[in-house]
């Protein structure tokens, strides 16, 4: 069933505002999504009615706060298909989740000469933590290349994975939009005896997620890209893997006992959650996934695929060779992020002209500079579509690009 986009839009208070007196055309959900009223209300209600620290007090408020926080975890765990809520560690975002793995699992399992395999389409968040380990302990990083159709070139995958300890890859590129076949990649890693980390930061907001079916060890994601608040994200990990890992940050909450001589750690997931966590944000994230499930992730994916197909067609029809799209040419096997070069106009100049028409797009390297170097471009413009976008938004993008072309007289 097609989404009622007008009704969805009405649930996002921010989308009702204007910019420079014009209807807001928000095409930057791959950077961060806007928030529906259900999320804002849940967080507001938490602060107005419940606020107390969690896992501490025995008074009613504290119990309610703890229950709300853990309910946010359980609801989010269910959303991503986790069998056990205790396999979901709250982090600040996907970046912190990947760093957590690098710092704890990596510290326990990776030494000089050990191999971590990444892909050329990774975000810096899934590159730099491993490069830090490479600098500190001499691990080796190998890269799965992309091919001419902006998909992973798996020709030499088994060779690249040979002897590897970890294969860490994105489920959906934030630049190309390309979706990767997570179960197949995980299976290849398993055959080589490598552990598997999936960066689901983009995919989790755009298609149904079932971590139980992925055969991964770790899955990282951010709340703010899935209509939830900033400041909270998740690391899902297989329970036995999490239990074998050393702790991350030290402090309150993550301990079972502390003596002058030392400490013992709490159970997972709290072992990895030192300090007062983002409680209202956990409540907000729970509301966000509840809202997403209410709309239906399969319906969202279908809507975005139709809209992506429309956008790819509209851009090609209007501008032909004047536009180069860096990503799969059809909506098949891709998400809704559309990166492009337009004429010879720099992405920042395009974004500036589009802003006149209240069209919000991302310009730059999208925190994926190794990929940009592979593509041979310094920067691209990226329009990314979400469930609240419609063909009017795409038409506004096309019209604003035509204006940019006229303005720069190219």
């Amino acid at each position, binding site marked *: 069933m097609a989404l009622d986009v007008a009704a969805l839009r009405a649930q996002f208070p921010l989308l009702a505002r204007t910019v420079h007196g014009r209807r807001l055309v928000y095409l930057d959900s791959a950077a961060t999504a806007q928030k529906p009223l259900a999320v804002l209300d849940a967080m507001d209600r938490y602060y107005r009615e419940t606020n107390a620290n969690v896992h501490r007090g025995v008074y009613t408020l504290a119990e309610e706060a703890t229950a709300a926080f853990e309910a946010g975890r359980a609801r989010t765990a269910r959303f991503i298909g986790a069998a056990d809520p205790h396999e979901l560690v709250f982090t600040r975002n996907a970046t912190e989740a990947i760093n957590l793995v690098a710092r704890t699992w990596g510290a326990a399992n990776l030494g000089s000469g050990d191999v971590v395999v990444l892909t050329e389409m990774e975000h810096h968040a899934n590159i730099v933590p491993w490069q830090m380990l490479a600098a500190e302990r001499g691990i080796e990083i190998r890269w799965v290349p992309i091919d001419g159709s902006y998909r992973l070139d798996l020709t030499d995958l088994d060779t690249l994975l040979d002897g590897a300890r970890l294969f860490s890859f994105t489920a959906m590129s934030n630049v190309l939009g390309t979706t990767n076949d997570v179960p197949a990649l995980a299976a290849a890693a398993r055959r080589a005896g490598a552990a598997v980390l999936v960066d689901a930061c983009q995919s989790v907001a755009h298609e149904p997620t079932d971590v139980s079916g992925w055969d991964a060890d770790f899955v990282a994601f951010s709340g703010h890209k899935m209509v939830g608040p900033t400041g909270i994200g998740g690391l899902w990990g297989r329970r036995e893997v999490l239990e074998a890992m050393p702790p991350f940050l030290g402090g309150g909450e993550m301990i079972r006992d502390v003596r002058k001589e030392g400490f013992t750690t709490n159970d997972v997931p709290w072992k990895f959650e030192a300090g007062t966590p983002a409680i209202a944000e956990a409540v907000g994230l729970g509301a966000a996934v509840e809202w997403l499930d209410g709309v239906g992730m399969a319906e969202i994916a279908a809507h975005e695929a139709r809209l992506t197909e429309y956008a790819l067609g509209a851009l090609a029809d209007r501008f032909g060779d004047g536009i180069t799209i860096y990503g799969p040419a059809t909506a098949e096997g891709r998400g809704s992020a559309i990166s492009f070069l337009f004429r010879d*106009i720099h992405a920042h100049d395009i974004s*500036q002209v589009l802003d006149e028409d209240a069209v919000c797009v991302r310009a*730059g390297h999208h925190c994926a500079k190794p990929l940009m170097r592979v593509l041979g471009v310094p*920067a691209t413009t990226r329009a990314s579509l979400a469930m609240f976008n419609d063909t009017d938004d795409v038409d506004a993008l096309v019209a604003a690009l035509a204006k940019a072309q006229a303005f720069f007289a190219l």
Partner: protein
Amino acid sequence: MPGLEDLYREIILDHYRAPRNRGELPAPPATRVEGFNPLCGDEVVLYLEVGPDGTVTDVRTAGQGCSISQASTSMMSAAIKGRSVDEARRLIRAFKALMSIHESKLEGGDATAATEEALEGVRLGDLEALQGVVKFPVRIKCATLAWNTLAQGLDEATGA
């Protein structure tokens, strides 16, 4: 609301479309220096030739970036060619002061005394067209990239 014509003045677009002094110089004897804006990936490469009398006898520019960074690079190269290193340094201070006026006004005051002093007696000429950039704070770094790179290059060329 500042309009696009405040940012993209005709002279800026002219320098963007037809950048002056593009190319390279053999280095050495010329000084080659690179500047990057890590946020947007803009890149400026300068080749500076400074004569024994302290005159910038030749300048060439390379690199890539948005219209503002490339136009600013082009305008800068035209402005310093044939000038003394001291004059070029005064121009850098004056240009950066021009770019900071908006910020000091936002902080509630007028242009600071240091800003006025830096601008005093310096003819910016065409470069004043770039003043509109200050109304678009995220673009200021695009405009100043070439000038920060020039400051570094002059230091290297003169062994300062």
